[in-house]
């Protein structure tokens, strides 16, 4: 069964409440123990592997040494035959036979070691995979447990008051409303800023005698002055009241 299937089974097993343990704590401990033991076995297998590899190398070295010895004695035997020393040649042949049977033993040992190495490597690979799988399973289980515990803490902290996990739609409405309010406030602030900003500027311009307002004021003044000038073309002083005129008075 996959890790995820096991978790789903655990989650759906019964009508579980938040805060209840998702994973059987006892099972978790057994799992941890299994991982621990697998790791120990793995370390031991790796140690064994290095030992067997060393033994294989030693056996192969011995085979090579024996090969050289056999060649050397074969040469000696041939030399003895060349010199018609048959008895000596027989003795050397005996030695060669001895070396060859020793070589056969070493070759057999080397091949056994090689087989052992293959087995150990397979074992190590399998143990490694099993540990990885167990660790992953444990991590998923513990994470699930941790998430449920955290949710329990969060639920308890939200237990009372306004921070309680409320109705989702109401939450949404509140967030939306707040966003609208904020957007409105920002817009209003912008408008106010623009208005105040432009008014302040207009005032400054007017004070400097620039702009529409200043011009308008000047224009009105100029018009009035012109009007006045036109109405009293010959008046020598302004102290005297303007001559009464019936036509003008009706205006």
């Amino acid at each position, binding site marked *: 069964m996959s890790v995820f299937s096991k978790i789903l089974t655990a989650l759906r097993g019964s009508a*579980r*409440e*938040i805060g209840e343990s998702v994973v059987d704590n006892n099972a978790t401990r057994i799992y941890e123990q299994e991982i621990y033991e697998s790791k120990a076995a793995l370390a031991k297998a790796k140690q064994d592997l290095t030992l067997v590899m060393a033994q294989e190398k030693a056996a192969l070295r011995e085979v090579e040494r024996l090969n050289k010895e056999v060649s050397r004695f074969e040469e000696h035997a041939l030399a003895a035959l060349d010199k018609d020393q048959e008895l000596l040649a027989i003795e050397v042949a005996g030695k060669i036979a001895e070396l060859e049977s020793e070589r056969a033993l070493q070759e057999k040992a080397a091949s056994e070691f090689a087989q052992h190495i293959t087995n150990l490597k397979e074992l190590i690979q399998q143990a490694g995979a099993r540990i990885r799988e167990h660790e992953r399973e444990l*991590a998923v289980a*513990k*994470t699930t447990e*941790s*998430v*449920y*515990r*955290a*949710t*329990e*803490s*969060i639920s*308890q*902290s939200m237990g009372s008051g306004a*921070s309680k*996990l*409320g*109705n*989702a*739609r109401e*939450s*949404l409405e*509140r*967030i*939306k409303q*707040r*966003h609208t309010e*904020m957007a409105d406030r920002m817009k209003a602030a912008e408008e106010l800023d623009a208005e105040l900003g432009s008014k302040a500027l207009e005032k400054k311009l007017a004070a400097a005698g620039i702009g529409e307002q200043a011009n308008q004021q000047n224009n009105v003044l100029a018009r009035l002055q012109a009007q006045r000038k036109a109405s009293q073309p010959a008046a020598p002083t302004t102290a005297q009241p303007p001559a009464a005129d019936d036509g003008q008075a009706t205006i």
Partner: protein
Amino acid sequence: METELDQRIKAVAAGLEATLGAVEVERITGDVPVFKLTVTGREELPMFVTQAQSQLLCICYLWTEADIAAARRTALLEAMLDLNVAIPLSSFGRIGDKYVLHGALACDAGVDDLTQDLLALSDNAVDALVAMADYLV
């Protein structure tokens, strides 16, 4: 006692403030340490950061089973599955009867990564609520 994670979360909150506005950090005591980050203006969708075994989880609770319109439940679940892959940095999930959006990071995730994840989570949560409103009562 302030842990290394406390410091990291504080730095993350400061990073979030630059984009989202004021962020309040609260440490919730319990079996497992949980940090609550509340963004001003999004008080209904606080985010929680907790260390769970080999990862840091950033969780935002969206709605509960009770919020779902019964007749549209399957459609909601399908919509969540359809959206799940496309949502940047966050995924839908469920804890007990609570539906969540969550992001997961390695335990040693840096301040920048956490900030990025939480920033996405906050935006995603608001979006999810808006998008799924039709399925809720």
